[in-house]
C-alpha cells in the first residue's frame, strides 16, 4: 500500500535510505541462458552484468539484483515470479 509522504524532505530521505533489496535464489530448473535473458530484458542490465548476476545466483545460491524502495522491490519480485524465477525481497544489511 502506498504511504502518504508528509514532505519532500521525507521523500528525499526515503530515496536516500533505499533499504530494500530484491534477491533471486538459485533453482535447479531455470536455464542459465533464460535467467540471464530475464536480467537483461526486465532490469535492462548489460549482457556482462546480467551474466555476472546469473553466475552469482548459480554459484553462491543467491544474488541481489536490485535495491530501492519497498514497493518497487515488491513489484520486481512479482515480475520475477511471473518469469518463474524464485525471488524474495528483504531489508538490506545484517
Amino acid at each position, binding site marked *: 500500500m502506498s504511504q502518504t509522504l508528509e514532505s519532500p524532505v521525507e521523500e528525499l530521505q526515503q530515496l536516500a535510505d533505499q533499504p530494500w533489496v530484491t534477491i533471486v535464489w*538459485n*533453482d*535447479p*530448473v*531455470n*536455464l542459465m*541462458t*533464460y535467467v540471464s*535473458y530475464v536480467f537483461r530484458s526486465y532490469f535492462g542490465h548489460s549482457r556482462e552484468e546480467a551474466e555476472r548476476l546469473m553466475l552469482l545466483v*548459480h554459484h553462491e545460491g543467491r544474488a541481489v539484483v536490485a535495491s530501492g524502495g519497498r514497493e518497487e522491490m*515488491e513489484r520486481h*519480485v*512479482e515480475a520475477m*515470479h*511471473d*518469469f*518463474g524465477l*524464485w*525471488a*524474495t*525481497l*528483504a531489508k538490506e544489511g545484517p
Partner: protein
Amino acid sequence: MIPFTRDGQVVTARLVPGESAMLASLAGQLIEMLEERAAESPTDLLLAQLGIGGASAPPLDPALARLLPDAYRGDDTAASEHRQLTELGLVDRKVANARAVIESLEGGTLVTLDPAGVQSWLRHLTDLRLVLAARLQIEDDGDEGTGDDRMLDLYDWLGYLQGTLVECLE
C-alpha cells in the same frame, strides 16, 4: 520438430502433431491446477474484482508452491499479507500465458509468435518445467529426477524447446 528460429520480430517453430497435442494438454492441466487454487481462496467478491483477496498461506502442493512462492523469507506475516494482495493476479497472468500458448498451437504444427507470444511462451514453458521438476523431485543442481521416464523426457524436451526460444532472442 524444428526448434525456434527468428526472422525479425517473428519467431517460429514446427512441432510434430504429438508434441503440439502434448503441450496443449499440459497447458490445460496447468490452467486447471491454477484455477483450482484460485477458487480455494477465501474471496470477497469486491476484492476479487480488484484482483486481490487471495489466499494467505502458500500452497501445500510443492509444484504450486514453486509457481506461487512467498515474496518474503523468514517473515510469515509480510509473506502472508503480500500473498493476499498479489497471488490472484499472479495466477491470472500465468493462466493467460497458458491460454496464449494453447491458442498459438491451434493453427496447426507451425507455431508463429509475435513478441507478446514469445513472452507468454517463455513464462509458460518455465512454469511447466517448474511443475514437472517438483513432480520429479528435482530439488538441487545436478538432480536427475526420479519417476516416470516419459515425464523425464518431457522435462528435457521442454528445456530444449525453451533453450532454442531464448537462443533465438539473442
